[in-house]
């Protein structure tokens, strides 16, 4: 699993499930929270998607706006948590 794959998977999920296919303007830097793309409900499905696709459980303390503000930020978090989990194993 590398950052590019994670970015692509996230873009795909957000376009399809949260933007109902209308993701033409979505970039890695689009403000997901300010533009209301990720709201409370969307966040729950996003967390489930991350868990199922990458096998990564985001600790409660990391579920913060800083880590969800853009695809780039979320992807970096997933890579970090994934790395920490495999180093610890």
């Amino acid at each position: 699993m590398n950052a590019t794959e994670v970015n692509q998977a996230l873009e795909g999920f957000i376009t399809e499930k949260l933007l109902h296919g209308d993701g033409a303007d979505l970039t890695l830097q689009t403000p997901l929270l300010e533009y209301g793309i990720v709201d409370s409900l969307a966040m729950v499905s996003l967390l489930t998607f991350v868990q199922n696709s990458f096998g990564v459980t985001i600790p409660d303390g990391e579920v913060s706006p800083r880590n969800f503000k853009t695809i780039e930020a979320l992807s970096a978090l997933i890579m970090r948590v994934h790395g920490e989990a495999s180093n610890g194993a």
Partner: protein
Amino acid sequence: MLLAQRGLSVLVVEKDPFPRYHVGESLTGTGGDFIARVGLADQMAAFDFPAKPGVKVVGREGAKYFVPVLRPTWQVRRAEFDNLLLEHAMAKGAEHVLGTVTDVILDGERVVGLTLSTAAGDEQSLRCSMVIDASGQGVFMSRKEIAGPRRVAAFSRQIALYSQFKGVEPDVGEQFNSTVIFYRDTYHWAWLIPISSDTVSIGIVLPTTSYKLRGGTAKAAMAWGLGHLNAELTERTREAEQVEDMHVSRNYSYRVDPFVGPGWLCVGDSHCFTDPIFSFGASLAMTEAEAAADTVAAAIADPSAEPELLASYAHYCNTGQGRASELIRYFWKFPAFFKFLTQGQYRDDLIRLLAGDCFTPEPLPATLEMRANLDDSPVLQRIPAGRARDIAARIYRRFDFFQGVDAAFLELCEDAVMISFILSEDDIDLYDSLRDFEEQLVADFGRDDLAIFSFTPDIIDAMPSVANAFPIVDRRPAAQRAMPQAEGDGGGML
């Protein structure tokens, strides 16, 4: 009571005969501490005041979580609780006059006394070493132009309707007698606070715009709130019977600054009130009162130290009120994340902050985390650093929460900054709030090279294109927004 027990001569002037109804029935952990410290814990037991185990938050789609109290505290009926405090003050030696304070007596810059008209009809003048303004939302010193003007703050333009009810289904188990916060959309929320073994206080809070849509009367809005705000609230109040008059408060969030000066200081609501969602008001007022008592006693003992003592009192109050308001802002801005904040590594900090423990010299790590998230926005990063970004940051912080402003744009022409607000409605209260905010911007950033325009729905067509402007906030439906522009071309359009 705090001053009288130090042997100072104290006069309490109160305009309403106690006991009297007052809103603010849920105390936090620091409120409980205060009660224990002043030796009233045993007397509290004589009233049927529920012990408060914590706060339960119920969001949309039934998302629920519970945050326990830091230390034992109570839910109170303010009529009896405030009376208990007054009687305790008198038992400690304070004198009490039923009357209204009408003015201050000045000697140069210094406040040296008050005039009052007593309930018995006498006009009196009194000299004193120090005046403490604890007039609550009456903001007495501000109205007399001794303290600074009352400035609207975020979370303004809301309306709260509240009363007391019997026959409401209680929580069970460890959450029995908790404060319950129900929230729906942003700024639409309700509280449920058990205040005796059979009575609960219920309040419905709505943005004023939304209130108008719900019939525009307190009764209609209360009925709408009980019926539609949250399924659990509806279920639990099905058999409820209203047993107190309906009360209404609106536009109640503000700050007064400065709120200390030669011979006087303000405590509690008389200088600051923020959204009541976390029941901070009475407890913060009690914490400030303890600091005020220390300040006044020390200033009377050493008048030369008064300016410094007052400055450090003001700093203390600003610290506590500021941290409480950051917590509230974070809750409203990131409701989905707030729950996680109460469950991860910041849980203990959150329990402390929700208890009103907001006055520590250094901020708790959770406060730093919230602050970073509140201030760090990709929207602001696009604006060149410096004055323009600072102005944008100020607007961003406020207008995220300001009801009635749909969008705000910032345009740069050389060094000049032009701000355009798009308003959601044509409303006099909104203009007042906005004018007040503009004055604050001009005061802080200077009038030169700063232009501020507002566009109401009827003149929106006259608004110049914002194609080259930076959006700071844009909550309009997607269809009304300008067309997206490619990233990286410096425009930064939505």
